[in-house]
């Protein structure tokens, strides 16, 4: 299945946000620049209007210019402007004022009473339409015509003074600026994407490493671990979690492997006996007793294999199904009594005494399985008891918990072996060495049965003094 790349998606989102940010910044910067430039233009136009206005006021007799206004009067307006106030002709502005005008700037002055153009500059002056709004206030106003910005003022004397500037050069400059902004923005975006790409590559390299290791582990190399030491904290934590999971998997797998290997080993030994017995017997003609011996050895080996396969099957059933069929309300005391009765003859043969202290201990269970547990425990106790030894079986409900114990005065179990006695195929060697009858599954089966029934089994032992096995169900397990 083709899956979407989270890295590409991250990068796409990152790029999207970065682009929006850069674009927003560019638009704001451009607007600021444009406002500032237009403000400059308006301010300049206002200055022009003011200068033209003052030049025109200077041509009036009243009010006279202040004495300190322009020491050098040679640029001042000609004094003979005055008499023509009511019959003004177009005036020429002084050079000083004209010099302030930049190329593309122009002005025009209309006499409203005369209703004609009094002064003008610039080639387009003829084409300048006179402002048409009402001349009630002597306030500077602005208007925009196409690419042209104009400021105009109705003076108290009834003139209209207008200064204008073609904005085309400014707009060209702004366009250039916008172009520069776009280029810079694209550069920032590319750099950002590159940096983001590298950062995400670093991040995802770690993730890929984790993935690759996990894949190798899944392929069977269960001993491998993700190198978490050189990872960052967040990924390191993930790696630690994965590693501990792998470790538990590995341990479970190793236990299973050990179990299978042990089972194979236990089956192979009697098989080897059968093969080698039969092949030896068949190598030549023999006396009937020799054949009998061989067949007896084969039978023993076959019986051993049968016990082993029964045990393995039982364990497998317990492992797989947990339990099947209906539990019935039973009394451990009754089950223990039956088992003890069955084993008393064997105990008597070995000169071992079985004592019982059986108080009612109700439990919802499969009685035949629980009977199997008692039988295994008591047989074990018998096997490791000295002659004249005692075995004590008790049942009851101390503290409201359904409990049963099987204690012996036998050889005991060493502290090193004690934690493993319920392990499958575990044999306490060499003292309890290899008797062909026991593959080391009896206690493992007991444990599986008790745990299937929701209880716990535990062993306590003093080497040389005896062992006590305890079955215990939590209060809820009983049906009292």
């Amino acid at each position, binding site marked *: 299945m083709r899956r979407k790349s989270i890295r590409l998606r991250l990068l796409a989102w990152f790029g999207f946000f970065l682009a929006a940010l850069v674009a927003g910044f560019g638009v704001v910067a451009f607007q600021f620049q444009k406002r500032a430039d237009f403000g400059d233009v308006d301010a300049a136009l206002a200055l022009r209007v003011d200068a033209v206005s003052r030049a025109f006021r200077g041509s009036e007799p009243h009010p006279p210019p202040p004495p300190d206004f322009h020491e050098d009067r040679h640029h001042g307006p000609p004094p003979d402007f005055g008499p023509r106030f009511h019959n003004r002709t177009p005036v020429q502005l002084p050079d000083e004022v004209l010099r302030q005008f930049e190329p593309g700037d122009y002005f025009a002055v209309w006499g409203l009473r005369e209703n004609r153009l009094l002064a003008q500059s610039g080639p387009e002056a003829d084409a300048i339409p006179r402002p048409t709004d009402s001349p009630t206030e002597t306030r500077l106003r602005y208007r925009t015509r196409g690419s042209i910005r104009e400021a105009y003022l109705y003076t108290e004397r009834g003139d209209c003074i207008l200064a204008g500037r073609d904005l085309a050069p400014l707009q060209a400059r702004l366009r250039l600026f916008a172009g520069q902004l776009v280029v810079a923005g694209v550069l920032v975006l590319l750099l950002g994407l590159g940096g983001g790409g590298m950062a995400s590559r670093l991040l995802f390299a770690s993730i890929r490493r984790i993935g690759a290791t996990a894949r190798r582990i899944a392929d069977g190399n269960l001993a491998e671990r993700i190198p978490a030491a050189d990872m960052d904290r967040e990924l390191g934590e993930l790696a630690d979690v994965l590693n501990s999971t792998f470790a538990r998997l590995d341990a479970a797998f190793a236990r299973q492997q050990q179990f299978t290997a042990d089972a194979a*080993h236990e089956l192979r030994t009697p098989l080897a006996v059968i093969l080698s*017995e039969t092949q030896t017997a068949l190598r030549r003609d023999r006396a009937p007793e020799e054949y009998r011996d061989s067949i007896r050895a084969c039978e023993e080996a076959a019986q051993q294999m049968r016990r082993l396969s029964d045990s393995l099957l039982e364990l497998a059933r317990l492992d797989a199904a947990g339990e099947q069929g209906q539990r019935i309300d039973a009394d451990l005391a009754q089950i223990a009594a039956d088992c003890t009765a069955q084993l008393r003859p064997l105990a008597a043969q070995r000169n071992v005494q079985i004592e019982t202290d059986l108080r009612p201990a109700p439990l919802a269970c499969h009685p035949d399985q629980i009977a199997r547990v008692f039988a295994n425990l008591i047989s074990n106790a018998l096997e490791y008891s000295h002659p004249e030894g005692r075995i004590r079986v008790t049942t009851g409900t101390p503290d409201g918990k359904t409990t049963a114990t099987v204690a012996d005065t036998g050889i005991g179990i060493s502290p090193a072996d004690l934690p493993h006695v319920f392990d499958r195929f575990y044999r306490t060697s060499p003292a309890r060495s290899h008797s062909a009858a026991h593959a080391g599954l009896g206690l493992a089966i007991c444990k599986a049965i008790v745990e299937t029934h929701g209880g716990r089994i535990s062993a306590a032992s003093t080497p040389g003094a005896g062992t006590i096995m305890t079955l215990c169900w939590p209060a809820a397990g009983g049906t009292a």
Partner: protein
Amino acid sequence: MRLLVIEDEVRLLRNLAKALREEGYAVDTAADGEEGLYKAQNSDYDAIVLDVMLPGLDGWQVLARLRKTRKTPVLFLTARDTTADRIRGLDGGGDDYLVKPFDLSELFARLRALIRRAADRPSPEIALGEVKIDTRARTVSVGGQPVPLTAKEYMILEYLAHHRGKVITRTELYEHVFDERADTMSNLLDVHVYNLRKKLACDLIVTRRGLGYCIEE
């Protein structure tokens, strides 16, 4: 040829000893690692069959300790069949590895091969002039005519033939031909050698007085 079998499954041990004796070997047995190591260190065996899973010392420990003093050929006979186990067995100084369950005939063939290699005689057939020994079938012929030999006679001939060119003391020969169960006098050897010479009808086996016996190259 004298073998030691170390195996804790008593039925298998008993049967292997019987089968190997019927093959003409002198066989000692040990049911655990300690006993096996003691015997292996204190006798000169032609080969040792060693189980791995033993009470007390396991097979690997037995081999590791044995290899400090002796280079007796060792064949591992074990139910442990993983490659790692085989490698451990062979790298630990083992000479061969056979997994249980096994075929007796294969065990015999491997033991024969081990003994041949140890004596530096790779061929299963030995020709000494007129006398030909087939170690596979354990038969001897002189000039093409089969010569019936007893097991002990054959063993003496094969041992001397494997070590031809060397003088074999009577003690060494005795050790390799009789196992721990034997309580015969060592001069029985001379009787076997006498009979062997008579049957072969040639002076193949030379007596070095005061030293022992020898088959010259």
